C-alpha cells in the first residue's frame, strides 16, 4: 500500500463519524461525536500497528465506524419518540402545515395536468345575456325544427323582441386529419355543425387559441373544435390552431377551441364549420339561436317563453324560446353548489358544537378564544381550495372523459371532500385543548355502561400541557349530552411537573371515585 493510499484512508473514519452525526439530534450531537472519537482512538490503538500500514486494521476501523450510523439512527428514533410524547405531532402548527402541503400538491397537479389547465381557461361562460334557442313548440328541443327559409325570413325583417339570429345544422361527416388523406382509415366521422359566421359573435363565446390576424388573412373555411373533441382527437394539444383538415373534397383550417360544457346547444356538435349564409342555408332543418332586445328580455320571465310567428297567409306558428347559458354552471359553480350542500348536510353527520359547556365558570381569555376560532377558520379556509382543486384534478385529469361525466365526477368528489373535510375540521377542533390547541391524548374509559343512569359513563382525554380534561359521554343523556371541557387550575399542577409532558404511565380521572380502565 502506497503512502498515498494511507493518506487517503486516514481521514475516512472521522469523515464517516461526521457523516453519521448528521442523523443525531442536534442537542446530543457534540457529546455523541466526543464519545465516538474517543472510542475510535482506542480502536485505532488496538487494531492498527504503529510502524507499518495494515489493510486488515483499516478494515476493522472502518467497520467500527460504520456502526456509528446505526447508533445515530437509533438516537434519532428516540428523539422523535420523545417529540411525539411532547405532543409535537398533535400541534396545531403541524396540522396547518399538513393541510398546506396537501393544498400545494393539488395545486401543482392542477397546474401540471393539461385537462385541468384547459378547463380552467375555458370554463368561464362567456354568454351574452339574453340568448335563446328557438324551436318548434310541438317538438323536442334536441331535434332540428327550423327551416333555413324561416331563418332567412326572420333575419330579413326588423324584429321587436330579437336583434340577432344565427343558424346551424348538424351533419355527420368524414374528416381527414391530413389535407391529402382520402383513404378511409385516415378519416374519422365527426358531428359537424355548419353554422353561419355570426354564431360565435352572437353568443360572445370565448374561442381559445384564436388569432384575429390569422382569420383576416385566410379565406379558407374555418373550423372551431369543441373542447371534448379537442381532448379526444388531439390530446388537448395547445398548438392545434392552424392545422388543416379535409371535409369531403374541401379543406378547412382549425382556428380555435370552444368550450362545449357550458353551451347548452343541442346537436352534440364536435366541430363547428363557419360558412357563409349561402353555403349553410340551401335547404334542410336546423337550429336557430337568437338574441333578445331589452323588450324581449322584459318579456322573458322564466327560462322558457312562448313565441308566436305570423306567416304570410295569416298562419301562426307556435315556437318556444329557451334561455341559453343556464345549463352547466362550470367547475366553480359546481364547487360552490356542492360546498353549500355540504354545509347544509353537515349538522346531520356530526355535532356542530365545539364542546363548550354553558354552565362552566371558567372561560379562556379573549385572545385564546380568538386564536381557537382563527385556527378553525384557517383549517376551513385551506380545506375549501383543497376540495376545489382535488375535485378538478379528479374530474378533468383524464382528458378522455366527456364533459358530462367530468361534471358528475366533480360534483361527487367536491361534495364528498367538502362534507368529510368539514366533518373532520369540527371533530378535530373538538379534540383540541381550548388553551393550547394541542390534541388531547391518553383516552381512559371511565365508569361502566350499566351505571349510565346512576353515574357518569364515557371517555376522558387530557391535554398534555396540563390545561384541560375532555369528557365525552358514552351515552348522551339529558344532563350530559355533549362533550365538556374541564379546565384544570393550579391545584392540578403537581401532576404535570413539566408543562410539556405529563407523567408517563399515570392515568388521572376527574372522578376519583370511579374506576379507571386502561
Amino acid at each position, binding site marked *: 500500500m502506497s503512502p498515498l493510499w494511507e493518506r487517503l484512508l486516514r481521514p475516512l473514519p472521522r469523515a464517516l463519524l461526521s457523516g453519521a452525526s448528521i442523523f443525531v439530534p442536534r442537542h446530543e450531537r457534540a457529546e455523541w461525536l*466526543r*464519545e465516538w*472519537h*474517543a*472510542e475510535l*482512538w*482506542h*480502536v485505532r*490503538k*488496538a487494531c492498527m500497528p504503529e510502524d507499518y500500514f495494515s489493510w486488515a486494521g483499516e478494515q476493522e476501523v472502518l*467497520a*467500527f*465506524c*460504520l*456502526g*456509528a*450510523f*446505526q*447508533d445515530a439512527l*437509533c*438516537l434519532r428514533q*428516540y428523539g422523535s419518540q420523545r417529540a411525539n410524547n411532547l405532543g409535537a405531532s398533535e400541534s396545531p402548527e403541524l396540522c396547518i402545515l399538513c393541510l398546506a402541503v396537501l393544498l400545494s400538491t393539488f395545486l401543482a397537479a392542477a397546474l401540471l395536468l393539461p385537462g385541468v389547465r384547459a378547463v380552467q381557461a375555458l370554463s368561464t361562460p362567456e354568454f351574452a345575456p339574453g340568448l335563446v334557442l328557438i324551436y318548434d313548440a310541438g317538438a323536442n328541443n334536441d331535434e332540428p325544427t327550423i327551416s333555413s327559409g324561416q331563418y332567412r325570413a326572420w333575419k330579413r325583417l326588423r324584429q321587436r323582441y330579437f336583434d340577432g339570429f344565427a343558424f346551424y345544422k348538424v351533419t355527420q361527416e368524414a374528416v381527414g386529419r391530413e389535407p391529402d388523406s382520402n383513404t378511409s382509415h385516415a378519416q374519422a366521422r365527426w358531428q359537424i355543425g355548419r353554422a353561419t359566421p355570426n354564431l360565435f359573435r352572437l353568443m360572445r363565446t370565448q374561442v381559445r387559441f384564436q388569432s384575429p390576424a390569422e382569420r383576416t388573412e385566410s379565406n379558407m373555411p374555418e373550423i372551431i373544435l369543441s373542447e371534448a373533441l379537442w381532448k379526444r382527437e388531439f390530446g388537448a394539444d395547445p398548438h392545434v390552431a392552424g392545422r388543416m383538415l379535409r371535409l369531403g373534397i374541401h379543406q378547412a383550417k382549425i382556428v380555435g377551441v370552444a368550450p362545449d360544457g357550458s353551451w347548452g346547444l343541442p346537436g352534440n356538435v364536435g366541430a363547428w364549420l363557419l360558412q357563409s349564409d349561402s353555403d349553410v342555408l340551401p335547404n334542410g332543418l336546423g337550429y336557430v339561436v337568437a338574441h333578445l332586445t331589452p323588450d324581449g328580455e322584459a318579456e322573458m320571465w322564466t327560462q322558457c317563453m312562448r313565441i308566436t310567428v305570423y306567416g304570410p297567409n295569416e298562419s301562426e306558428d307556435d315556437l318556444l324560446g329557451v334561455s341559453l347559458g343556464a345549463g352547466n354552471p362550470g367547475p366553480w359553480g359546481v364547487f360552490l353548489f356542492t360546498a353549500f350542500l355540504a354545509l347544509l348536510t353537515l349538522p346531520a353527520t356530526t355535532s356542530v358544537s365545539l364542546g363548550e359547556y354553558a354552565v362552566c365558570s371558567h372561560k379562556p381569555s379573549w385572545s385564546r378564544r380568538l386564536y381557537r376560532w382563527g385556527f378553525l377558520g384557517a383549517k376551513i379556509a385551506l380545506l375549501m381550495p383543497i376540495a376545489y382543486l382535488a375535485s378538478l384534478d379528479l374530474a378533468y385529469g383524464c382528458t378522455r372523459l366527456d364533459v358530462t361525466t367530468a361534471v358528475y365526477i366533480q360534483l361527487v368528489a367536491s361534495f364528498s371532500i367538502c362534507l368529510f373535510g368539514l366533518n373532520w375540521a369540527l371533530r378535530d377542533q373538538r379534540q383540541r385543548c381550548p388553551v393550547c390547541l394541542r390534541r388531547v391524548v391518553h383516552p381512559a374509559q371511565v365508569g361502566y355502561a350499566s351505571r349510565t343512569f346512576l353515574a357518569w359513563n364515557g371517555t376522558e382525554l387530557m391535554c398534555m400541557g396540563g390545561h384541560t380534561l375532555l369528557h365525552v359521554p358514552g351515552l348522551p343523556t339529558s344532563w350530559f349530552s355533549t362533550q365538556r371541557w374541564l379546565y384544570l387550575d393550579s391545584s392540578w399542577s403537581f401532576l404535570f411537573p413539566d408543562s410539556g409532558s405529563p407523567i408517563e404511565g399515570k392515568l388521572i380521572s376527574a372522578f376519583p371515585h370511579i374506576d379507571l380502565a386502561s
Partner: protein
Amino acid sequence: MAETAKLSHTAAIILQALDAGFVYGFSIMEMTGLPSGTVYPAMRRLERDELIRSQWERQAIADAEQRPARKYYKLTPAGKATLEASRKRYPLLERLIPSEEAKPV
C-alpha cells in the same frame, strides 16, 4: 424497569459484560464479539430504560495518560436486579462472561 422486564440476548450479554467490569463500548465489543452497530444502540436503549448509566472519565486522568477521555457505563440498581433475573433465565450468561475476567479500568 421491572425485574421481569424482557431482555434480548444481546442486552443481557451487555449487562453481564458491564457487571464483569467491561465498562466502555469498545471493551464490550471485544469481550462479546458483537459489532459496534449492535453494542452502542443497545447501550442507548439500556440507558434510556435506566438499567445502566454513563459517566465521562475525568479529563485530568485522560490527559495524564495522553489519550482522549472516554465514557464509562455502570449498572444501576434496577439494572443489577434485571441482570439477576436474566441470569436465572439464561444460566449460561455467567459462564460466558465470568466476573473474574474483568479488566481493571
